[in-house]
């Protein structure tokens, strides 16, 4: 059922104010770049606006979360393509402003280990241990089976445990 524009504007702005900070942080945890994260979130809200007529308002937050994860994948894919195919004059120095440098060493070590994981494992771990989503919610967000969520989480944790050397 179509909703009138005025109601949409109010609903959108409410969602924007309530959801945007958390979505930007989620995107940063996935792409390690504040500017790219903000673009991803902005695009997610625009996508929601375009599809508003087909989105259940109670599912809008989940829709945004899925859009952010998908947008983050696009950022990572473009970044990978650029690294592989573009000739750059200077060596790759990573993200322009690495927010992880602001962290204590113990946390920075974990974040750097997280960056070495395959994309899906990282997504699952971020959604599980930062967004605090259930396996079913993660499966819905990523469009994968619950079994895949479970195996990705298990492999990701094991990889982290190995990289961190079991230090508490």
């Amino acid at each position: 059922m179509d909703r009138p524009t005025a109601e949409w504007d109010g609903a959108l702005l409410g969602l924007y104010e309530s959801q945007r900070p958390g979505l930007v942080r989620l995107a940063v945890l996935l792409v390690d770049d504040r500017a790219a994260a903000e673009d991803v979130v902005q695009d997610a809200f625009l996508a929601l606006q375009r599809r508003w007529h087909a989105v259940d308002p109670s599912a809008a937050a989940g829709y945004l979360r899925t859009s952010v994860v998908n947008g983050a994948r696009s950022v990572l894919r473009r970044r990978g393509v650029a690294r592989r195919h573009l000739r750059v004059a200077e060596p790759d120095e990573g993200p322009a402003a690495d927010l992880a440098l602001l962290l204590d060493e113990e946390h920075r070590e974990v974040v750097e280990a997280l960056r070495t994981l395959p994309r899906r494992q990282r997504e699952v771990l971020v959604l599980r241990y930062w967004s605090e989503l259930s396996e079913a919610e993660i499966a819905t967000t990523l469009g994968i089976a619950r079994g895949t969520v479970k195996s990705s989480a298990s492999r990701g944790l094991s990889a982290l445990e190995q990289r961190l050397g079991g230090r508490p």
Partner: protein
Amino acid sequence: MTGNRELQDVEARLRASLHAYAEVVETAPGRRPVADRSARSSARRWRTPALVAAAVAAVTAAVLLLSGPLSAPDPIAAPATSTAEGDLEAATDGRGSSGDDVGAAAAGPADVLTVPQDAAAGDSYPFDLYTHCGILGADVGGVWFAADPPLVEESGPPAGWGDPYQRGTLTLESADEAVFRDDAGHELRLRAAGESERPPPCD
């Protein structure tokens, strides 16, 4: 072998570090979303199909003029079976169903698998899910089922999905709920939606 204790330590450490990482992200109020881009996107969406349709019409007219008086359509050359959403998308994409080689070659699988109109709850069907414009939903026996949630990445499907179709199995769990699964491990839930929610065509 990694023990439970070690994994629990890693979990705790990961949770703490993710929260610490998120905390360093200052989130100043952002710009309000603007709709200009969607309008431009909508215009782009229609431009290519319109140009292709015009070109197909011109070629068809030329062929008719060269081939002499109109005759009854050749049943062998007529388009194949109805392909539900494929009809909508292919026709508006300019990829379809004039019966010529160009349309057949660009439309993806030669025989797009669909759900029959007499499908009943509990039935499963081999199914080609249309993904080209993002995974928005599927035509299930003539009824539009919306993806929940829709999966769109830059106007196309997310990584790991086929394009323009992903072959799998569609199970009608009830009159208004269905689920699509494939061998790659994807699972997509779909819910019956009104015809007004069927998305517009895209290029």
